[in-house]
């Protein structure tokens, strides 16, 4: 079946310590998003903020299929992937605050969160724009004789873009070890015409390019992790591309940037019954792998870690206006600014204060 909304079967649980770590990672992302949504509403975080509420199982499951040496790229929903990959929440939150303590020093924001030490290449703002970049990374690994795999997470909407077809084609004819994880959204913010029409036959489409395709229930971390691990194994050992379709119900948050779950009662109830974090926690409790106090401790740890992150972010200084031209060129002993001839005779540094936000999509 192309479009599972439930897992193929109940997957076995991993070692207790691992299961708890997965739950903790999902919890951390959830809490981060809840707080980030509030701080966005309060004007502390700006720009576009694409939350991941409901995608935690997909994000953590996919990331836990990777080894440290593997490369990861994703869309604008980058903050969550960085957290999954192990980047300190403080440095992610500070990035969303636009501060120098941010992982990109406040230059990139949520959409560009990147952590090269963890081989997380970011954070790409344009729909589908990271696909060829992922193909290139995979090509380089093979060229260098290294058994690394590149994972590229994208949305179903991106599969209508030419970048998808071009990259799939190349990955297929060049046997690139890249795993494409397509988040097929069945809820939340999505272009309905698009999702319905373009992704309905995603598996058929991908197979048309000669790409091996797997599907998973993106709401179930066990299924997602197992299927992605299989995809990674194929990519790593057989040196060829694999596409994983992860079906997903993003929370009915109404807007991409508000974490608060809203919508009508039934919709909310339906989503809550699917909530990947609650589901996984319940399962761990059921099988006796977690008791309720441990569960509460994991939640509290997430809370406190995020509160520390918020506090760190709030204390981290704004970048200096004069640092505008930094980190743009690699200077070969040249001076900053040498590469451009700035025409701006005089730049006054306007006072900086939180400014009102226009209605945004």
């Amino acid at each position, binding site marked *: 079946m192309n479009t599972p909304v439930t897992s193929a079967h109940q997957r076995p649980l991993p070692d207790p310590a691992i299961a708890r770590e997965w739950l903790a990672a999902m919890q951390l992302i959830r809490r981060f998003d809840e707080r980030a949504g509030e701080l966005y509403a309060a004007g502390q975080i*700006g*720009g*576009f903020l694409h939350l991941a509420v409901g995608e935690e199982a997909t994000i953590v499951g996919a990331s836990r299929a990777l080894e440290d040496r593997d490369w990861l790229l994703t869309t604008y929903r980058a903050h969550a992937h960085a957290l999954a990959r192990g980047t300190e929440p403080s440095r992610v939150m500070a*990035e969303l605050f*636009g*501060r120098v303590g941010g992982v*990109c020093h*406040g*230059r*990139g*924001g*949520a*959409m*560009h969160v990147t952590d090269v030490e963890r081989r997380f290449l970011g954070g*790409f*703002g*344009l*729909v*589908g724009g990271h696909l060829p970049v992922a193909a290139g990374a995979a090509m380089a690994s093979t060229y260098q004789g290294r058994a690394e795999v590149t994972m590229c997470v994208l949305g179903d*909407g*991106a599969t*209508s*873009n*030419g970048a998808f077809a071009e990259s799939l084609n190349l990955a297929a004819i060049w046997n690139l070890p890249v795993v494409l994880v397509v988040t097929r959204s069945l809820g939340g913010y999505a*272009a*309905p*015409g*698009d999702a319905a*029409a*373009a992704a309905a036959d995603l598996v058929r489409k991908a197979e048309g390019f000669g790409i091996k395709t797997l599907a998973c229930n993106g709401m179930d971390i066990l299924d997602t992790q197992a299927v992605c691990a299989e995809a990674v194994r194929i990519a790593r050992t057989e040196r060829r591309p694999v596409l994983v379709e992860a079906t997903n119900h993003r929370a009915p948050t109404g807007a991409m940037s508000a974490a608060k779950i809203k919508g009508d009662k039934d919709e909310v109830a339906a989503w809550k019954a699917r909530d990947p974090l609650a589901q996984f926690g319940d399962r761990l409790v059921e099988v006796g792998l977690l008791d309720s106090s441990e569960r509460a401790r994991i939640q509290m740890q997430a809370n406190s870690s995020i509160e520390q992150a918020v506090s760190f972010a709030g204390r981290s200084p*704004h*970048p*200096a*206006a*004069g*640092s*505008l*031209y930094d980190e*743009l060129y690699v200077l070969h002993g040249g001076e900053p600014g040498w590469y*451009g*001839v*700035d*025409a*701006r*005779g*005089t*730049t*006054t*540094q*306007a006072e*900086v204060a*939180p*400014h009102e*936000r*226009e*209605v*945004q*999509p």
Partner: protein
Amino acid sequence: MSTTTLTYREALNQGLREELDRDQRVILIGEDIGLFDGAFKVTKGLLADYGEARIRDTPSAESTAVGLGVGAALVGLRPVVELMTITAALRALDQVLVSAAQTRFASGGQLSVPLVIRTPQGSGHQLGPTHSHSLEAMLLQIPGLLIAAPSTPADAKGLLKTAIRDENPVAFIEHESLYGLKGEVPDGDVLVPFGEAVVRRPGQDITLLGISRGARTAVDAADVLEREHGVSAEVIDPRTLRPLDLPAIIASVQRTNRLVVVEEGWPQGGVGATIAALVQEHAFDHLDAPVLRVTGADAPVGYSRVLERAAQADARAVAAAALKTLGR
């Protein structure tokens, strides 16, 4: 002429509605313009009122959206294609240049392409390096492509109506930070002609020319100059970049002998550079000082609000450049 107070966004929506009502050949094409009312809500309610055949939601496929508009235009329609951001428009530049702008020439005048490509640009909402571009200068390069860049609600509506009726392809550049701006908009079928600059504020000591939101920045700068320095600045808004009302610009400079150009785009290869080059060429002996440009910084727009502001062409910077030009 009766007017109504509308936002820039509402004025665009009204202009689209009037043209959709007037001419069945007008159709709208773009990502999320229907069910989602457009990324910036400019097409609000149009799907409900005009139906799927005329308000066409596309997938994320920018180059194809423009090519689609070209094909429909060749076969008798007058499509208006919305691209979500001017950065997305980069992906369509082959179609904009080759299919939209050059087809009339390449066919020896057999074909024409009455197509409007609407796209928002600009910084101001901390959208970071990928979503804050101002790229009108790249489009200005292209012969065959007209460019409108309205800075008021009235011009937004009037220029859009003119664009839709023009037989040539038009890039219609909106500014993301102007959508909420209110202003008086003439009711009914009032068009704003292409190629006619407007004086936003008369003055004698110096000319400030502002492009897109830069026209508003220039007015703010003129206020500062008047209030704080007793300088009388004339503000010109060219409104369309191709055709460009060079005579109006030259006439103003011939009176004031000084010019500062304000744009948000990058300086190298920018619109301001072109205007500076043209003005020194056509009014060399009238210039008492070099034409200065206040542009967006020659760097990406950072996400941090400090960096975003620092990269903008702001009124204080314009006032400072004006004073420098005046030798003060």
